[in-house]
């Protein structure tokens, strides 16, 4: 079976670097705060920063020392990433759609579209998806709109 070099080691390195930058930004920002306001975040931020530097250094040493073979084939990795990207884009689209067609309508569209773009087939599974959409729409409507009287963000549809 064909295997791929594990990219997790790279994430192991990249992620603490991103966190390092993030915590550094917070620490720099905190310098402009009054002494009592910045005391606690600086204490925590300082400790976290030291730990992150330690983590990054140890990752550099470990990454250069070894590479792991992944259990997944390149095809499996590609499928996994595609599904992850699809759902991420779908959530982003949902967020945008909320302000255009309204929160409630956007939720119905998300429920209807997501199963198909993440692996279900229109020919075989349309009935299952339809049943799920009807049930969930009813649950959301009865619970949130009618009972809890949540005022959804309005759009041109609902």
């Amino acid at each position, binding site marked *: 079976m064909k295997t791929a070099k594990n990219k*997790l080691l790279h*994430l*192991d390195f990249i*992620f*603490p670097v991103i*966190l390092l930058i993030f*915590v550094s930004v*917070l620490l720099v*920002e*905190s310098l402009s*705060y*009054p002494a*009592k*306001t*910045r*005391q*606690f*975040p600086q204490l*925590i*931020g300082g*400790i*976290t920063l030291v*730990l*992150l530097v330690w*983590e990054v250094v*140890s990752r550099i040493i470990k990454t250069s020392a070894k590479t792991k073979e992944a259990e997944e084939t390149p095809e*499996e990795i590609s499928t*996994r*990433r595609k*599904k*992850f990207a*699809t*759902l*991420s884009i779908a*959530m982003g689209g*949902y*967020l945008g759609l*909320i*302000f255009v067609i309204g*929160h409630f309508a956007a*939720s119905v569209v*998300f*429920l209807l579209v*997501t*199963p198909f773009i*993440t*692996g*279900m087939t229109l020919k075989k*599974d349309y009935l*299952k*998806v339809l049943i*799920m959409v009807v049930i*969930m729409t009813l649950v*959301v409507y009865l*619970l*949130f709109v009618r009972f*809890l009287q*949540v005022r*959804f*963000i309005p759009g041109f549809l609902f």
Partner: protein
Amino acid sequence: MNSVLLEAFISAVSWPNIIYSFGAVFFGVLMGAMPGISGTLTLALLIPVTFGLPTASALIILTASYCGAIFGGSITAILINTPGTGGSAATCLDGYPMAQKGQANTALGIAASSSFIGGVIGVLAFALFAPPLSRLSMLFHSPEYFALALFGLSIVAVTAKNAMRKGLIAAGLGLLFSTVGYSPLTGFIRFNFGITYLEDGIPLIQAMIGIFAISQALVLVEEKGANIAGGKIVGTVLKGILIPFKYPLTLIRSILFGIGFGALPGVGTATANFVAYMTANRYSKHPETFGQGNPEGVVAPEAANNALVGGALVPTLTFGIPGNAATALLLGALMIHGLRIGPALFTTHAIITYTMVWGLLFAQLFMLIIAILGANIFAKVTLIAKELLVPIIVILSLIGSYAIRGSAGDIILAIVFGFIGYLLKKAGYPTICLILGLVLGQIAEINFQRSLLISDGSMAVFFTRPISGVIMAIIAISLVSPAIKAKMAERKKNRNN
């Protein structure tokens, strides 16, 4: 006294109180199972319903629905790794892995049984020991609260056994996130970077929904397998019901944590839930199996979060100081019904108070019955195709986040924290540590600052006061003991060789 108890019992079992109790538990379970709808919100929804009812009936409805909501939160925690309420967050850690093994109904049985035992003992503790417990809780001041928060954070060391550094980094991040918004001491706005939404800080529930539910949806969509349970359910509810009895020490310890943390105003259900879980992990014979579906990891948080209900009633009803947001609402309801808070509740209004106690005991029983009858049906959720389940999780979570305050920013925040949670999981950082930091951040900071104000900046205040000194000593021992144990085990091994 006996006649009061008998009269209260008759009132509690009388029609329609018994129906109110069952209905309120059922409603609470349904509400609690919805991400974002907390026990507090459930209680708030029911307060207007109770206005026209007799006081005892109103109290039964409110307290029973709260108990139901706490258990309801555990259902989704187990089935889809999404805690319905903050108090069920730790239940995810071993409950969901059990569901992945096809043992969702067993895990639900454990949760029901542990919640029942914890709930009953918690209520009895309130009924029997309310005055001494409330006096004890009044001995806790800022240094003690800070020590308690530190105790909670010391748990990080245990949680992240094999990735201590990563655990501490995640906890540090959680603590930093908790400092976003108004400083509790000076009122100065921190780390909002010009975003008005962040001025009030990062809302805990919405962040937790993101870390648990949204990140779970992202993980689920890319995982292999058609559904969570891997095709079949192999567990049984009855097995789950009996499991807590195998861990009597864990059960007792967790219940004591629940009652104790409940009696301390402001500490919160999530803290008790986590501390009970981590302590069970620390003293377990098989700590290495925690996080992989160890039943003991479901027993501990579930016993604690329901025992907390009784504990939280102690300061609420004896001093009028609510133990948490839900009991604050209960306090309001008591006042609406014209009850005087304090010792009078156990003398002048004794029948009403003890009717509520009986009502709470029946509520625990109803919760157990609902769980037993419903566990196999609930467990079927783990057999739903992932492609169908993922949009359900996302929609319920994001609408749940929005419904709390009606803020679109909360939807964005839940998604952002979803990606943060996903990345943490992928990079091997324990997300529980991030949550622990978020939960305890404010308690730690405000009490740290207050203590230093009291002591003119001297750190000795944390060690010289008897209770905080004892807690600090426990923290030191618990941090050092694993290393000592490991060293001793190594020596023993070397000697045997």
